[in-house]
């Protein structure tokens, strides 16, 4: 265990109460008023909010295969900078994470980076092709202990394949994270189908393509009594179906990305592919429905869908460009801007939506714990009254494709603690937890 000791003075806990927190031996050792500790590094966090370390259920780390865009290490640094203590590495690497070998490699790279937990997600089907099941059991029993399975980037489209996958994962208490996209309705699609796409002449991506799969899969999940997670919900209609499914007692959870809580398809008018993402940015009405659903808990969590891309895959025509945008370093600020500053939720719910709930859905040990004595010290400190300006040239990611370049955002993540060690201190990344 770590010998690092930190005393956080004057923290506001998610419930609004004030306390000092002593971190020692990797855990929260004390929570009380007016703590004193002669051996601890003193950190004044007056005015800041202390949250359980953020847990991302949807991250693209690109390693193995596209290390120019991101590596497990650079993604871990990006995560720590954004306040994350756990990431979930999506399976669409090259080679695909559809076997124990690849998930163990990614898991080990995460441990070597040592800045946060990297939990690999396993592919549902071999090569993400949607035809034959991948080695789900081997991945579940590997040292990576995979519990979340997803073909993200591709939809598990064949209803029989989806049914079998939902059934098979029950043996491992797993969950299928579905990328809901009806492929026939989205051939060559470029952006949300609506008035903006009609003017821009970019091929439309109808909301129904997402909603039809969500509807099918909640029904399948009900039928086989399994567990389903819907990745990146973007439409008001999708929210309605999930609300209905939950009311019916179907075991479904859902996520929304920070960018879908803020940005709309109006941004495509620039033809700048920095705003090209899968699923696409939708309308203002959808954005408002997503915020409301997250506040209500119909949508359970925020997940980043952090998708790094090399410069050349965005410096081109819209239709040639890759889908995806960075998310880790701006996620908490976007949530503050769209959900907290708008008074839709408080910090206790932020802790739930970005830490407790995702850790529960994925079954991540040692993550997403409430702030209590004895819990592993996975913690995030955010100063909600400070602001910062996003600069794509200052990100910790290997890539630069943030859609928020130049945005002034509220909420500065100042400190991140992973298993009791500071990985981010006063906004600076620390690889070894030492504070200069």
């Amino acid at each position, binding site marked *: 265990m770590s010998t690092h000791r930190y005393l956080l003075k004057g923290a506001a806990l998610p419930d609004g109460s004030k306390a000092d927190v002593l971190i020692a031996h990797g855990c929260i050792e004390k929570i009380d008023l007016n703590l004193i500790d002669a051996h601890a590094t003193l950190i004044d966090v007056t005015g800041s909010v202390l949250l359980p370390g953020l847990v991302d259920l949807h991250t693209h780390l690109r390693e193995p295969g596209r290390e120019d865009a991101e590596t497990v290490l650079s993604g871990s640094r990006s995560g720590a900078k954004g306040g994350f203590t756990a990431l979930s590495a999506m399976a669409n690497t090259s080679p695909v994470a559809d076997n124990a070998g690849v998930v163990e490699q990614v898991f080990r790279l995460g441990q070597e980076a040592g800045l946060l937990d990297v939990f690999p997600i396993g592919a549902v089907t071999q090569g993400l092709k949607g035809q034959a099941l991948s080695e789900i059991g081997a991945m579940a029993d590997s040292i990576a202990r995979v519990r979340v399975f997803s073909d993200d980037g591709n939809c598990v489209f064949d209803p029989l394949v989806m049914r079998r996958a939902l059934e098979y994962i029950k043996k491992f208490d797993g969950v299928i994270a579905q990328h809901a996209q009806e492929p026939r309705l989205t051939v060559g699609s470029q952006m949300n189908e609506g008035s903006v796409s009609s003017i821009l002449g*970019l*091929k439309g991506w109808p909301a129904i393509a997402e909603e039809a799969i969500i509807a099918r899969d909640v029904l399948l999940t009900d039928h086989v009594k399994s567990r389903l997670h819907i990745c990146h919900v973007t439409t008001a209609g999708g929210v309605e179906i999930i609300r209905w499914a939950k009311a019916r007692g179907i075991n479904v959870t859902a996520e929304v990305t920070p960018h879908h809580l803020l940005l709309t398809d109006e941004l495509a008018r*620039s033809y700048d592919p920095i705003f090209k993402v899968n699923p696409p940015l939708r309308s203002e009405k959808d954005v408002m429905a997503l915020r409301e659903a997250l506040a209500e808990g119909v949508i359970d969590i925020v997940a980043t869908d952090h998708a790094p891309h090399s410069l050349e895959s965005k410096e*081109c*025509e819209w*239709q040639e460009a890759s889908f995806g945008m960075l998310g880790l370093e701006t996620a908490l600020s976007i949530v503050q801007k769209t959900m907290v500053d708008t008074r839709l939720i408080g910090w206790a719910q932020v802790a739930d939506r970005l830490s407790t709930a995702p850790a529960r859905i994925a079954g991540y040990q040692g993550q997403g714990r409430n702030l209590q004595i004895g819990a592993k010290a996975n913690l995030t400190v955010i100063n909600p009254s400070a602001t910062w300006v996003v600069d794509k040239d200052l990100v910790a990611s290997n890539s630069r494709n943030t859609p928020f370049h130049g945005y002034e955002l509220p909420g500065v993540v100042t400190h991140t603690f992973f298993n009791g060690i500071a990985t981010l201190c006063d906004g600076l990344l620390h690889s070894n937890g030492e504070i200069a």
Partner: protein
Amino acid sequence: MRHLLSIADLSKAQALSILDTATELARVSDGAVKKLPTLRGKTIVNLFAEDSTRTRISFEAAAKRLSADVINFSSKGSSASKGESLKDTALTLQAMGADAVVIRHGASGAPARLASSEWMHGSVINAGDGTHEHPSQALLDAFTIRKHLSKGAPDLAGLRVAIVGDVLHSRVARSNVLLLNLLGASVVIVAPPTLLPVGIESWPVSVSYDFDAAIGAVDVVMMLRVQQERMNDLFYPNAREYSRYFGLTSQRLKLMNAPAIIMHPGPMNRGLEIAAEVADSARSVIVEQVANGVSVRMAILYVLLAGQSLKEGGS
């Protein structure tokens, strides 16, 4: 005005100034010496990343009549077909000192990307981008309509135009809807529901699925080219059925108003969207559109590169 990317970027005054300049320049084209020295020393690049003979030669003729140096850069046999990025092509053109780039591209928004990037500094003229816009075509169409039907008015106020066919994939339709609306004309879109974009409710047009009902109420029938291969994408059952409902046949010609004109941006599919005898009829101004195209493109180059309009009695 530095670029011409979309009709949406034009004010009514700017659009009219291009049309007025074209009227003046048309006189040059009719004269014995067809050349003006206005753009001497300027380099204009025709960057055609998609097949289009007629638009390219129209811009080429326009540039040459204004004494500009013209470089044709087509994707066939050039680096674009070898996979060079738009960025590298633009950097190359910048290095060559292009004052303007006339770009035809299969990707919607490619001209906008060139114009907003730091890759090159010349003017960008959209000569058709994907299924987005084709502003010079709309301007030459408006020029043609004005010449025939405006009765001396500067704009197209009160005129009624039907745009018929594959609006979903048509850049000509998008630019025309914007410009006709800007100039005061009213537009009815006639098409099968499969070839209308979702979101058309936000356009300043009315929509009809019934060509017979619409045709008698308009002054201009503007036919769009139908791609034969769209049949495979289930947009309509077969060519005969398309033609029966949405083709401009000899029978439909009889339903048109007395002074109404027929337009087509070309190239035509004779026998599919327009019957051969209709295309060649007295009401057809299709060949004249081509001639007007040169004058209007001269006007566009003139306004963008010489930085002024050419009004009657002006410079």
